[in-house]
């Protein structure tokens, strides 16, 4: 029996002798990169200190990013970041990204060329699965996993079953990869891929840009998946060519690889989507949203904070105004994205339209800062979760959408499709 892409990457990283590897096996693997942020690193650092190990296994393979509550939103957050920067200095960690250099971690790491195909990445952030877009096996873990990983370079994993999702057909106007993944989550449910690795395949995903692939891999966790992988191809190589000199193996799933299930999706039937509160699987076509008045729009995050996303937003906002009842907050995912958007005139377009533009941060996505919702308020957001209270008060509501719907909704003051405002 052949092996899936995930199984091949895991087999290449296994510690010690193991003749064959099957789904369900508990294995120990060596990792290529370990990630933590200003929320998860402080606990990891505390737990690391309990191990009695002085030095981390490799200062080049640990990445610390201050992105969630940074720029520090309050004194406690400042202290969390301080714990992280002191540790980074003491351990000579060069990949420590603080304000001025930092971006949202899952926008930043690929941009910095820190992940290549075939890598095994663990990160104390659930959206670590984003790097699956590069053909890496990347998965979210906890702070204690990071502590032990920093000491040994190893992690324990259960080999996941793999499921395959095949996308075929022609995408409609204004439909983005965000709509494909929202539709997929609506179809399989928030635990539809629980404990499993998703392989995103088919002609449609082969044609997606890296930004589009990152968006889809990012939300694999919203279907409960352990990882969400794309095969690496010429698009991947072109993206990496400008970003790293590292050589990397290219793994492909065997033709007779075993999948626990296969889902086929005709993208021609998918319209721009919205996930209604309070669970990402509560998806419907934006056109069928009804009259949902909104108070805030957020465009950004590890899901949709890349240059391509801001380019689409600028196309919608150009020559138009944000509705007087709406606060529109646009957050470039990294300094590089911000600078490129500035040079291309997108930032001017946003500010002229009446939107606020922020330095990179996860901020509002998790109700941290930079756009927290009051009781009864509603937001359309290009982020990834709409759990009760996710962006603020437990009586607020979050509607997840792609960039075109978010931008159109900011202009209309209610959930809208782009055709309604761009006519």
């Amino acid at each position, binding site marked *: 029996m052949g092996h899936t892409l995930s199984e091949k990457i895991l087999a290449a*990283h296994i*510690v*010690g002798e193991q003749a064959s590897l099957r789904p369900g096996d*508990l294995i120990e693997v*060596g990792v*290529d990169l370990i990630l933590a942020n200003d*929320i*998860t690193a*402080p*606990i990891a650092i*505390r*737990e690391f200190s*309990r*191990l*009695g*190990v002085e030095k981390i*296994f*490799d200062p080049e393979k640990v990445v610390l990013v201050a992105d*969630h*509550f940074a720029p520090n*939103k*309050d004194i*406690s*957050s400042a202290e*969390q970041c301080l714990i992280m920067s002191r540790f980074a200095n003491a351990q000579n960690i060069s990949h420590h990204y603080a304000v001025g250099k930092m971006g949202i971690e899952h926008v930043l790491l690929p941009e910095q060329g820190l992940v290549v195909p075939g890598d095994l990445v663990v*990160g*104390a*952030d*659930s959206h*670590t699965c984003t790097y699956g877009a590069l053909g890496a096996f990347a998965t*979210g*873990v*906890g*702070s*204690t*996993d990071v*502590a*032990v990983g920093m*000491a*040994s*370079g*190893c992690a*324990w994993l259960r080999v996941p079953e793999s499921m395959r999702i095949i996308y075929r057909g022609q995408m409609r106007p204004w439909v983005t990869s965000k709509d494909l993944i929202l539709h997929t989550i609506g179809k399989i449910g*928030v*635990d539809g891929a*629980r*404990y499993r690795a998703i392989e995103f395949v088919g002609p449609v995903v082969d044609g997606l840009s890296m930004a589009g692939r990152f968006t889809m891999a990012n939300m694999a*966790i919203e279907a*409960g998946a*352990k990882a969400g992988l794309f095969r690496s191809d010429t698009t991947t190589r072109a993206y990496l060519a400008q970003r790293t000199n590292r050589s990397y193996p290219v793994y492909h799933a065997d033709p007779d690889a075993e999948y626990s299930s296969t889902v086929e999706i005709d993208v021609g039937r998918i319209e721009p989507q919205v996930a209604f509160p309070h669970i990402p699987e509560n998806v419907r076509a934006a056109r069928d949203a009804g009259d949902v008045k909104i108070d805030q729009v957020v465009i950004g995050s590890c899901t949709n904070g890349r240059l391509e996303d801001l380019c689409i937003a600028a196309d919608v906002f150009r020559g138009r105004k944000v509705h007087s009842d709406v606060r529109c907050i646009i957050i470039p995912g990294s300094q590089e994205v911000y600078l490129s958007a500035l040079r291309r005139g997108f930032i001017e377009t946003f500010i002229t339209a009446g939107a606020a533009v922020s330095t990179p941060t996860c901020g509002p996505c*998790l*109700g*941290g800062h930079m756009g*927290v919702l009051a009781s009864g308020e509603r937001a359309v957001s290009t982020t990834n*979760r709409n*759990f*009760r*209270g*996710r962006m603020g008060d*437990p009586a607020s509501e979050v509607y997840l959408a792609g960039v075109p719907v978010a931008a159109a909704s900011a202009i209309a003051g209610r959930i809208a499709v782009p055709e309604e405002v761009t006519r």
Partner: protein
Amino acid sequence: MSAEGRAWKYGDNVDTDAIIPARYLNSSDPTELASHCMEGIDKEFARGMERGDIIVAGENFGCGSSREHAPLAIKEAGVGCVIAKSFARIFYRNALNIGLVILESVPVVEETKPGDRLEFDLATGWITNLTRNRSYQAVSYPPFMQELLAEGGLIEYTRKRIAAGRLPSCASR
């Protein structure tokens, strides 16, 4: 390890924002986190629960974020164990890594009413509903996970490996 306590019952897809809202993540102090345990879904829990009480929930408990603050808040609050039909995978590993007992059992969840007294024995995997006088066998753990829980978590397990000179180093990879 065994314990007895009252059941606090919740539905499917209890997410990590419900267990510990992100606004409290500017602290990693377990006591502080415990004081907000389950606040996103049940404001009465942290005040009303007693040491040893048991959380009983449906499918996909702990879905969402990787925040270890979630199992940490539950453990520090004194919850005896969490019994669910299924767990989200990051929550599952985080719970084992920090030594919070979690058990999977569909019938226990379906047949337990809020306030029932439950008892569990980790060694045997038996859960007893003392109120209804029924016993159930939870889904069993693989040996590695049993060992993790027996040691009290991944840090204790790893310390033992280090002491025995059994920690693999992947630094040379």
